[in-house]
């Protein structure tokens, strides 16, 4: 099997565009071939798409970053195994593993983005006030809820952001209320920032007889991919990491605490009127929670998601889909005040 991949890689090399070809001037056929190369052999050799497109520098960088990401995953998992997932070291080691997984997967996504030839767009401006109302549907076989009404608000004062939000079930006694207070440590736009984020979440499962209240602190960042790879202008990567403490309250019974690792990574790109992104979120609380996987990895992974938003003047549309222990879909109308 590895031999087949080598043959495909050699084939890709043989059809690579001549040196000096710019990625914006390639033929449709070659671009289609490059898109195919992002999958085979690109699933293993990230950057194959750019290589076929004639951008060997970006291809080489993506391959090198993939290697670093893979190495980080292996190192992280090995360290977790050697320490027997010790309570004293597991949180930072998991963080390292997630970072490696982020680098590994984002190089694949970046390769695909680069060869698709998507017109470069810029980030939308930050608005001092942004609010949304919408609906959501949660498909979870174990809980009665399904339809939700959603609301959110972002208020920005200089480097501070206050973001309350609510999801209230329309067909069950269930509500998730969350308040975020963030401080911008660096960056002054939607395109590049480094934030310190604190949050308090209360999730009431009334008909199931319990509630979860979570306090958390994390750092969250976004940066344009062109910071490292100029050919990928218009795309961005995200990352976050932090910890939380949950109180699981059983109303008339006991309450017990459980710690929570929060964090994840994402890759997205800007559209002329918005942006789209795909992401991994390590959270195991909330509606999507962790992925249900058979085998040895049971319970460890968080959930996957995709989101997008489009603005038409002051109004916009925001959609999101997540899959973990449940499937979650949401859509909301967004209003933003003028910057």
């Amino acid at each position: 099997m590895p031999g087949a991949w080598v043959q495909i890689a050699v084939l890709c090399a043989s059809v690579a565009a001549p040196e000096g070809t710019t990625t914006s001037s390639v033929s449709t056929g070659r671009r289609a071939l490059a898109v195919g190369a992002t999958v085979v052999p690109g699933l293993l050799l990230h950057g194959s798409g750019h290589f076929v497109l004639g951008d060997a520098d970006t291809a080489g960088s993506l391959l090198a970053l993939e290697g670093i990401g893979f190495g980080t995953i292996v190192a992280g998992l090995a360290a977790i195994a050697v320490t027997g997932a010790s309570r004293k070291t597991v949180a930072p080691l998991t963080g390292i593993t997630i970072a490696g997984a982020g680098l590994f997967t984002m190089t694949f996504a970046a390769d695909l983005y680069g060869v698709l030839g998507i017109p470069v767009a810029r980030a939308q401006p930050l608005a001092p006030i942004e609010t949304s109302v919408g609906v959501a549907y949660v498909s979870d076989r174990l809980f009665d809820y399904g339809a939700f009404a959603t609301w959110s608000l972002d208020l920005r004062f200089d480097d501070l952001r206050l973001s309350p939000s609510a999801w209230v079930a329309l067909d069950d006694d269930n509500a998730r209320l969350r308040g975020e207070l963030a401080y911008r440590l660096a960056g002054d736009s939607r395109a590049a920032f480094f934030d310190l984020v604190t949050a308090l979440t209360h999730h009431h499962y009334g008909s199931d007889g319990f509630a979860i209240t979570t306090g958390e602190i994390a750092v969250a960042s976004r940066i344009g991919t062109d910071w490292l790879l100029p050919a990928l202008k218009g795309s961005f990567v995200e990352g976050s990491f932090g910890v939380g403490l949950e109180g699981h309250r059983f109303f008339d019974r006991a309450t017990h605490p459980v710690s929570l690792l929060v964090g994840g990574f994402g890759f997205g790109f800007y559209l002329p009127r918005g942006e789209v992104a795909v992401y991994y979120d390590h959270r195991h609380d909330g509606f999507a929670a962790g992925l249900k996987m058979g085998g040895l990895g049971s319970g460890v992974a968080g959930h996957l998601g995709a989101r997008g938003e489009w603005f038409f003047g002051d109004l916009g549309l925001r959609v999101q889909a997540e899959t973990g222990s449940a499937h979650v879909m949401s859509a909301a109308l967004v209003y933003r005040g003028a910057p």
Partner: protein
Amino acid sequence: MKRFAILLLATGCLEVADGRALIDLEVGRGGNAATSVEVAEGLATVRGVAGSRIVLWANAPTLEITLQTTAMSSLELTIENVLPDARLEGEGIEALEREVPTEGRWRVAVNGRSVVRLVTDDRFDREPWRFVVFADVQEAIDTVQDIFTLIDREAPRFALIAGDLTEQGTDEEFERFQLEMKQLGVPAYATLGNHELGTEEGLYQAYFGRGSSSFVFRGVRFTFIDSASATLAPLVDTMLDDWLDQPEPLHVVTMHIAPHDPTGTRNGAFASRAEASRLLRRLSDGGVDVTFYGHVHSYYAFDNAGIPAFITGGGGAIPERLDGIGRHFLTVDVDPRSSALRTGLVRVD
């Protein structure tokens, strides 16, 4: 590559435990053209029916077994993993000599259909008694004899295994584990762990029985829950309702992956925190007295939804470092008359 493909397919699938729950329902039944056997509530798995010989592996101390033949015949019934003093009740039964204390052999005269019961004299007693719990042997099968020796020294009535008996859940590993169990002086009743999911679905059940089951012995209800995929199949969720409804002085629940990991940042727990708390609320409402878990290779004593909880993953698999625990198992002394329950930690190394 095939494993990678299976992993990809499994990713995001919300029904990872459903297949096993359905396989559970088939446990306890077997036979051929002339002979069939059925064990009530699937509390034993049929290891083989060949000619007039039937071999069962018990996953509970008492069993109700229905034997059927097309004509009058004498069947040789072997039940492995039984209490040394267990006897078979019914008509036309002749006890045969035991080669291993936990392997009972009987000759049963069957005319068409016959119901026999595996029983012990003390099954309804309310006197204090002891059992032990361990988990996570995995690759340490070559040293599990140390644990078995110490278990016998504690003189329990039987042992509970909270999953991860093997490293990969292969035929060879299951056979080896059952072979080693013959060195243990008492039976061990088990549920499966995530390491038993490695190969063929249903293989664990073929060797050890249901992942989710429940039985009563000496005033204590014992319930095993298959949480090997960090979730419960809805079918198991429904069966649990029935088990929680049964009034017994004490109720012990054992599963492999705990709903909540006391070190939450590790996520050695259910995939969904909400599902975990939903289950714990139901266990609490159902009056469960204690929960035992494996999966994490250490010892933790904590509280979940007001229920005392213990993780005892000290069967020999790579231990959690820096915790000062190492290989161990738990002894549990129960007194059904006062609904009292006391655990003790026994270190092996």
